[in-house]
Every structure is written in structure tokens, then in C-alpha cells.
């Protein structure tokens, strides 16, 4: 229809430049139109003075219509046209790139397998019509690009799709060849996360339009797909972990499904979920126990429902490295009290945490309890550390009812560094000499607190208060006593009251309040507040009376107090980094061989260390063993990187060792896994958005298979390759004649309506 009215496809209008081919100057056109307008005005005014039926606004309407008609006629005299670049016939190459990944083998409801449809489009005339004007080069693309001679070489067997990389390789060819356009036949199911802006900018710079023909259904009729699973890559033994499972579905809105976590054959957790509306991404959390030390391969799955078209995307694998390390926590308590006794008891059975305590028992005596005997000498002798290297041997710190002036200025400074630089966790408990009542507002530790302390004393109150979880507390693992979130909320509400509470002030921006205290006398105060600070984290638990409500008032078999403090202290130290930390962007390589390794190395004082020798020792399946030297990153102090190619699928273990002057700074263990034949199982719907974006950003166009025949005509308009500039007349467009006719008819109809004719 567009072409019928406007004579040319809209590609010509998109790419062309409007020009006037008549020899007269443009200003003359303007003057002519103005003269015509004025002249018509006087004629119309004179006529309306003679005829009372065409006056006022009616005369203005007539004048406008006649002026428009005159303007268009005058414009036509100046010979309007479009100047557009077109590819010179037979002097340009069109690259036809066909997606050969395994997702193209999917049989959609109509039309058979996608690749078969693509071949059909090419065979039924597109290639021939292109070949009439251009040289055609055929390529196939999956994880990389390859030239082919015949369509028979397409097999839909590629393990993954990397369109961006493939197109970049086409551009590389364009450096030496006059490629005028690219035609991409694909379902757009890219496994690298899409085509990045850098690649698109690069393509745009070459001014090569990419025309895309999309295959496959844009949505599946019946399918559930897990899009992502987030699980912490490291954990302490027997930790409670939360897996955040994101998924979407089509065709089962409102149905129930079963979400399961497995470690091999062992079911770790399972729960029922209600599926969201079609196409809506939903995230559910499911708790599980990390178990004993070792690498766990956690498989997350949603049981397929009847009629599901693709069940291979219902399962995702993730790795968790359950570390054998035993973080050490130093608890400094300023007064003997029951909260101290029961906190120690609550965590004594946690084999993964070493709690060392210093208690001020009398005016001049401290009592040290170090069951494991691995504290620095200063602590064993009963004193809080004064040197940074002593304090940094700990992973977490608890400060009880100990007033701030007890710590010297030097100690306060190293506590600050402990959190900020070392990355340790710091927990403040409530008490008579804690928080505002302990003078912390005026101390150097004030900015570590996740709260703005009140400006007054007397914030610690020995009076009953119950507890309620906040919205954030409902999702937090620290406060999860019951598996079911709703039961958990109710349990906390029903617990006996705390014996005391403290006003901690207001949470700082970025702090998270997990629990509120509800005093018997009224009001509500934050009770448990957490925050990330520097490389570490801090928390306030504004009470010294949890022992009463959650331990002594509960039956012997109840483990509320134990669970709470264990989970709180594990949160405090689980993410405290060691001197060497290794990471990789993706722990699971899906149909990819290359792994990127990154190590952060710090010295004894946790200052980034750029003069270390860092080596990664890699062990893989079937006895694979290799060593890679990691090189320092020039722009990041203390960071070392390396890339390595995995020879085969399976689980890999990397032990990174850092040394300085032949002395070991530290080591770390990382695990990752390579799985082949999985990438193409996901995102199998046609990614029309990607294909449209590719074409629109590069000056091309998206086509459905049934419209592909138009491509042969429209492809000629390109500024890449060898082109000539052509002009296309506009004066003889049917739309112009129609417009003139409409203007004239419009005036006639108005006059008839007004009874003039």
C-alpha cells in the first residue's frame, strides 16, 4: 500500500535525502507561495464581502485550502525528488549469514524446523534475486562464523549462538571486500547475552545495514524456563543458603509446579510454587543446607508440566564450594551478664565458627576464653589487640556493653580498618555501656555504625519488648527460624519478650532493618540493623536481653536462640575475604571453553599487593592438570588475571597461590564447571527484539519469512560497499495527485454544505 501511494518503498524515504531538482532558487519558491497566499486572501475576502454565506471562519477555511493547493502546485514546479545511495549492480557483495545453532532445529508448530524454513526462504527465490544484482557469499554462524558454498552444509548442530562475534567476523571480511549489506537468517536466540553496544557501534561505523529475517515463534505455547539461579559460590559447612530462582512460563499461568534442589541424587530442598502470568519473570527463594566440606553441584529444577514443549530448559546447574575454613570471631564484653553467657552457649555447637571472648570481670582483670588456642598472644594474655596484624587474624568482631573510651585511639583506628580494609564483620550489641550510652557517637567508630545514634544518654532501657520482623527481615537468612516465611513471621511475633532494649537511633541510608522492637510501653524501635561498610559489614543488635525471651523462656528442645545467633554470626563472617581471593565471571561455562580467572592479593595488612607472584594450579576431569601464571592488571592494584581454555567438559578446581619474596601470602580455591550441549536449550523463542534492534541500529530492516521477498528490492539502498547516488522523482507520486484532489474536493464539499453552490 505504501509503495502504491508513494511509488517507492519506505526504505528509500528512510535512507534518501529530499532535494529540489528545478533550477530556480529556493527563496523564489517561498516568495511565490507567499504571493499566492496574499493574492488568494484578497480574492477570498472580496468574494466573502459579496456573499454573506462565506464569511468569518468559513472564508479562512476556504483560503487555507486554496493556499495549500497553490503551494503544492508551486512545489511541483521546483521538481522535488529523493537522492538515495544504491549499491552498484554486480559490484557489491551481500553476505547471507544463516544461524546454524541447534536451536534452529526446533520444530515450531507451523512450518517445520526453523532451519528448514530458512533454507526454504533462500531457495524459493531470495538468493536468485540477490544474485541478479549482487555477488552472494554464504556463511553459517553458531559459536563462530564459517563460509559455506551450499545450503546443504547447514546442519543446525552448533552448540551455542554468538551473533555478535559472528557479525564482527563478517566486518573483518568487509575490510577487504565491498560488502554492501548483510542478511541474517536467525531465531535470535543468542547465548552470549545479546549483542553489546560496542559491537553495534562497530557495525554502524562500517555503515553496513543488517537485514534480519526472524524464524521461530516469539513465544512458546507451553513452556517453563529457568532463566537464572543465584546461589552464593562459597559457604561455610552446614550453612543455610538461599537459592534465588528466576523463571518464566507460557501456557500455565496460575498452575502449581514443584521446585527442587538436588546435589546428585540427594534432594536438598523442595517446595511448591505458583506459576506467574505468561511471560512475567518471577523469582522464588528456596533454602537448603550447604552440608559438609566439598564442592557441591547443585541442580535446580522445576518438574515439567503436561504438554510442555521444551523440558530441557527446566534445569540449571550451579556450584557451591563449601569451605573448610573456620572463621574466628573476637567478642569483647565489658560486663559479666547473661547475654554474654547465652550467646557463647548458642554458638558453641557450630563447628565452623571459632568464638574467642574477652570479658572484663573485675576492675582490673579480663577473662579470656579461647577454646581453640589459636588467638594471638596479646589476646591470650587478656588484652584487646593493639596491632593491626593481630586484629586482622580475626574475621569478625563483637563489641558488647563496652564503652568506647575503653578502646584507645589506636585501637579504634584499627577496628575501623578491620572493617573497611580487612573486610571483617563488626557486630554491636546493646547494653548499659553500648551505643549512645557508651559514648560511641563521639568516637572514631561512629561512622561504622549502621545507625545515627541519638544525641542523648539513657537509651538503654530494662523493660519488656517483643519483636517483629520487617519486610527485609522476612527474606533474611539471619532471622529465618522456620522454613516457611509466613510461619517464620508468626513465630517471631509470638516469642516471649526481651528483657531490655536500646534506642539505636535511625538507620543510615543503605542500612537494612531486619527486626523491630515493640516496647510494652508503646512505640517501635529498630532492633537488628545491618549494613555493608567498605569491604566489610556492620550490624547492631540493640538488646542485651535476648537470653530471656529466646532461651530461658523457651522449652529445652527449642533452638531459636541457637539458630538466631549462629545465623547472625555466620552472616558476620561468611564474606570476610582472605588475603587471596579468586573469582571468575561465570562459574558455569555453557558451551564455552574459555575461562577468565581473577585474583585479588593483599599483604599481611590487607593492603593490595602488586608485586606478588601468582600462580593458578588447575585440576580437571580425567586427570587434567595445568598451571597458569597470573599477570598483574596495570590499572587495578593487587589484581591478577589469566585466561585458560578448558579442554573438555566437567568440573574444575583452581588453587591460586600468591607469594612475595618466596614467602606465601595466601592461597584460595575456586571451582567452576563446563557443560556442553546446554546453552541452546534456553531462550529458544525467537528473540525478535534482538533482531529488530540489530537491523534498526544499523540501518537495516527486520522481515518475517513471508515478507522476505521484498528484501531483494530494498536491499539495494545502502551506503556501504560500492554505491551510486540516484534520484527518484516525487512529483508524480499518486499521493500528490490524491492530495490535490482531496483539497479541491474538500473546498467543493464545504461550499455545498454552506449552501453557496
Amino acid at each position, binding site marked *: 500500500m505504501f509503495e502504491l501511494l508513494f511509488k517507492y518503498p519506505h526504505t528509500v524515504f528512510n535512507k534518501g535525502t529530499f532535494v529540489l531538482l528545478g533550477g530556480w532558487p529556493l527563496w523564489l519558491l517561498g516568495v511565490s507561495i507567499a504571493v499566492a497566499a496574499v493574492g488568494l486572501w484578497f480574492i477570498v475576502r472580496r468574494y466573502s464581502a459579496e456573499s454573506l454565506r462565506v464569511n468569518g471562519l468559513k472564508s479562512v477555511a476556504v483560503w487555507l485550502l486554496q493556499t495549500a493547493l497553490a503551494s503544492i502546485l508551486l512545489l511541483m514546479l521546483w521538481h522535488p525528488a529523493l537522492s538515495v545511495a544504491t549499491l552498484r549492480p554486480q559490484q557489491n557483495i551481500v553476505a547471507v549469514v544463516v544461524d546454524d545453532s541447534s536451536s534452529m532445529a526446533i520444530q515450531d508448530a507451523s512450518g517445520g524446523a526453523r532451519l528448514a524454513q530458512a533454507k526454504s526462504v533462500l531457495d524459493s527465490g531470495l538468493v536468485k534475486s540477490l544474485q541478479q544484482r549482487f555477488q552472494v557469499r554464504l556463511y553459517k554462524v553458531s559459536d563462530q562464523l564459517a563460509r559455506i558454498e551450499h545450503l546443504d552444509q547447514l546442519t543446525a548442530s552448533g552448540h551455542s549462538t554468538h551473533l555478535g562475534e559472528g557479525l564482527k567476523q563478517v566486518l573483518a571480511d568487509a575490510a577487504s571486500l565491498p560488502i554492501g549489506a548483510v542478511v541474517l537468517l536467525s531465531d535470535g536466540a543468542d547465548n552470549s547475552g545479546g549483542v553489546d553496544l560496542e559491537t553495534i557501534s562497530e557495525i554502524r561505523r562500517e555503515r553496513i545495514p543488517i537485514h534480519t529475517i526472524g524464524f521461530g515463534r516469539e513465544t512458546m505455547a507451553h513452556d517453563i524456563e529457568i532463566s537464572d539461579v543465584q546461589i552464593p559460590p562459597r559457604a561455610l559447612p552446614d550453612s543455610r543458603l538461599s537459592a534465588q530462582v528466576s523463571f518464566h512460563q507460557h501456557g500455565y499461568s496460575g498452575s502449581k509446579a514443584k521446585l527442587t534442589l538436588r546435589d546428585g541424587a540427594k534432594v536438598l530442598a523442595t517446595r511448591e510454587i505458583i506459576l506467574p502470568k505468561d511471560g512475567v519473570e518471577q523469582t522464588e527463594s528456596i533454602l537448603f543446607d550447604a552440608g559438609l566440606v566439598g564442592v557441591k553441584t547443585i541442580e535446580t529444577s522445576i518438574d515439567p508440566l503436561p504438554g510442555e514443549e521444551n523440558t530441557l530448559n527446566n534445569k540449571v546447574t550451579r556450584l557451591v564450594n563449601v569451605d573448610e575454613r573456620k572463621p574466628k570471631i573476637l567478642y569483647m564484653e*565489658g*560486663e*559479666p*551478664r*547473661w547475654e*554474654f*553467657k*547465652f550467646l*557463647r*552457649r548458642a554458638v*558453641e555447637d557450630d563447628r565452623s565458627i571459632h568464638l574467642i*571472648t574477652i*570479658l*572484663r*570481670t*573485675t*576492675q582490673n*582483670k579480663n*577473662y579470656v*576464653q579461647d577454646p581453640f588456642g589459636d588467638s594471638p598472644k596479646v589476646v591470650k594474655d587478656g588484652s584487646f589487640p593493639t596491632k593491626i596484624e593481630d586484629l586482622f587474624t580475626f574475621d569478625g568482631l563483637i563489641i558488647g556493653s563496652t564503652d568506647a573510651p575503653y578502646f584507645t585511639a589506636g585501637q579504634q583506628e584499627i577496628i575501623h580498618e578491620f572493617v573497611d580494609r580487612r573486610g571483617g564483620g563488626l557486630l554491636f550489641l546493646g547494653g*548499659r555501656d553500648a551505643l549512645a550510652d557508651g559514648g560511641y557517637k563521639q568516637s572514631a567508630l561512629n561512622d561504622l555504625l549502621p545507625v545515627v545514634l541519638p544525641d542523648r544518654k539513657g537509651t538503654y532501657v*530494662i*523493660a*519488656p519488648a517483643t519483636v517483629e520482623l520487617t519486610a527485609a527481615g522476612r527474606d533474611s537468612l539471619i532471622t529465618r527460624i522456620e522454613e516457611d516465611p509466613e510461619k517464620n513471621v508468626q513465630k517471631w511475633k509470638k516469642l*516471649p*519478650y526481651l*528483657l531490655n532494649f536500646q534506642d539505636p537511633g535511625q538507620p543510615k541510608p543503605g542500612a537494612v532493618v531486619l527486626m523491630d522492637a515493640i516496647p510494652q510501653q508503646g512505640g517501635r524501635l529498630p532492633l537488628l540493623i545491618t549494613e555493608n561498610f567498605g569491604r566489610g559489614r556492620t550490624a547492631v543488635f540493640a538488646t*542485651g536481653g535476648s*537470653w*530471656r525471651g529466646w*532461651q*530461658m*523462656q*523457651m*522449652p*529445652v528442645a527449642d533452638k531459636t536462640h541457637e539458630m538466631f545467633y549462629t545465623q547472625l554470626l555466620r552472616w558476620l563472617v561468611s564474606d570476610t575475604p582472605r588475603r587471596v581471593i579468586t573469582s571468575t565471571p561465570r562459574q558455569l561455562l555453557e558451551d564455552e571453553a574459555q575461562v577468565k580467572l581473577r585474583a585479588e592479593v593483599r599483604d599481611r595488612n590487607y593492603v593490595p599487593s602488586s608485586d606478588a607472584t601468582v600462580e593458578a594450579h588447575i585440576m580437571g576431569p580425567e586427570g587434567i592438570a595445568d598451571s597458569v601464571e597470573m599477570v598483574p592488571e596495570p590499572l587495578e592494584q593487587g589484581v591478577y588475571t589469566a585466561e585458560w581454555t578448558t579442554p573438555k567438559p566437567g568440573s574444575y578446581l583452581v588453587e591460586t597461590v600468591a607469594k612475595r619474596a618466596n614467602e606465601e601470602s595466601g592461597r584460595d580455591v575456586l571451582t567452576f564447571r563446563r557443560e556442553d550441549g546446554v546453552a541452546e536449550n534456553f531462550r529458544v523463542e525467537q528473540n525478535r527484539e534482538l533482531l529488530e534492534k540489530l537491523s534498526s541500529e544499523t540501518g537495516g530492516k527486520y522481515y518475517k519469512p513471508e515478507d522476505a521477498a521484498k528484501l531483494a528490492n530494498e536491499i539495494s539502498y545502502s551506503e556501504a560497499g560500492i554505491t551510486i547516488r540516484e534520484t527518484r522523482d516525487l512529483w508524480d507520486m499518486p499521493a500528490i495527485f490524491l492530495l490535490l484532489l482531496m483539497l479541491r474536493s474538500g473546498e467543493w464539499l464545504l461550499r455545498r454544505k454552506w449552501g453557496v453552490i
Partner: protein
Amino acid sequence: MRLRSIFFLALAGFGTWGALRAQRPFQQYPGVEYENFPLPPDYQEKTEWTRARLRYPSFINVHGYAEPANGGYHRWTIDYPRSDRHLLQGIRRLTRINTRSVEQIVDLDGTDDVYNWPIMYAVEVGYWNLTDEQCAQLRDYLLRGGFFMCDDFHGTLEWQNFMASMSRVFPDRPVVEIDNKDQIFHVIYDLDDRFQVPGAQYLYSGSIFEYDGYGAKWRGIYDDKGRVMVAICHNMDLGDAWEWSDDPRYPEKFASLAYRIAVNYFMYDLTH
């Protein structure tokens, strides 16, 4: 009418629930030795800690002699409250424990109040006569993390009577001698050299012991983690030592040891 009944029943229920759950306020009782002992000016101060004294039913006749016809002595009030007040003053002076200046009287009455006071003391337990329910609650109290110290009972007969109740609290746990090396004797003071602490009767009799209670017995019952949860002071009278510590006639060495024992025992409880 029906609705009103339901309303009042519910109110009563809530009231009972509240009473069950709430911490009972301080109350002073008349005792065998002191009818109306003066209260310290700060007795109402809210603090982090205080030591509870157990009120218990007692036997009228243990040693075979008659006791007052009004039902016998209330043995639980022996030394009370002077002993308690002196002791708590000592705790304030010698430690950083933020203690109340007055004790708390508790009962094993089936309510939840006893669990508000994780450290409990009982005197003259050679005369106590706990019911089965009280034994069960004492066991529950201890297994939840409570600490019980008993004192001022002497000789074989009183030991047997004590055990008649204690063996029903813990039929499955033995009473053992506390070793000198145990932290309970070293947490603040090193108390390897302990001796028998006599009661005030020493001032008149000159005898360190009572009945056939020769030699102090420092005994205990341990929990599954190897912690003392019942500290048994047999053949001694620490209560009298605290009570008479301000009397120049009562030997200082006995009073000092009694305070040191208390400090160690309380500090042990708070650190284990």
C-alpha cells in the same frame, strides 16, 4: 449475658497469660531470723543481674527433735535477707557485675517466673522436700541454662534428705566432687586451698563442723558439655559467713573465702 461471660473469661485468660509471662516484682518476706530487715535505698533500681533465692517446702523433723508447732521453721529463710544483701554488696564491690542490691525470691510453682532468674541459691537444703513437680521444673530450669547453688547443710542425715529430692531432679546424673583444676575454682580467684567455712555457731561452740559434717565437700552436677550446673556446698555455711561478715567476732578468713567462692561461682556461671 453469654457474650459478657466470654469477654470476662478472655480478660481473665489474658491476665493470667500476662502474669505467667511477666517478671515478678521484688518482694520482701518475713524470715526466721529477720522480720523486717531495712531495704537499701536503691532496691528498686533495675539492673542486669541479681541472685535468686529459692523458696521451698521443708521437712519439719530431720534430726529427730521437735520444731515450732506452727508448721516448723521456714528453712528457706535462714540468713535471709541479711546474708543476701551483704553478698550482693560484695559482688558489686569485687566484680563488674551490675547487680541489684536485693535478692529475688522465686518458687518452683509451675509458672515461668523462675526462668527470669538464671542463677538461684538455696540454703539449708538438708531440710528441703521438693514435690515431683518442683523437681521436674528445677530440672527443666537447669537444662535451659540455669545455675543452682546450695549451701548450709551438714552431715549424713541432711545429705540423705537433700539427695532424696535432688535424685528426683536428676536421676541420671551423678553428684561428683569438683576437681581443683575446674575453672570454677580459678575464674577470678585461684581457690586451690579451700577450707571448711563454719556458721555463726562457731562463735559459741568453737566447732568448725555441725553434726557429723566433717570436712567441706565441694560437689557438683555437670551438664552434657562438662559444665557445673548444680554447685553443692556441703558441710559448710557460706550463708552465715556472708551474713556475719560485718561482725568483728566472725573470723575474716571464713568470710573472705565465702565471698571468693560466691564471686567465682557466679562468674563461672556467667562465663560458661
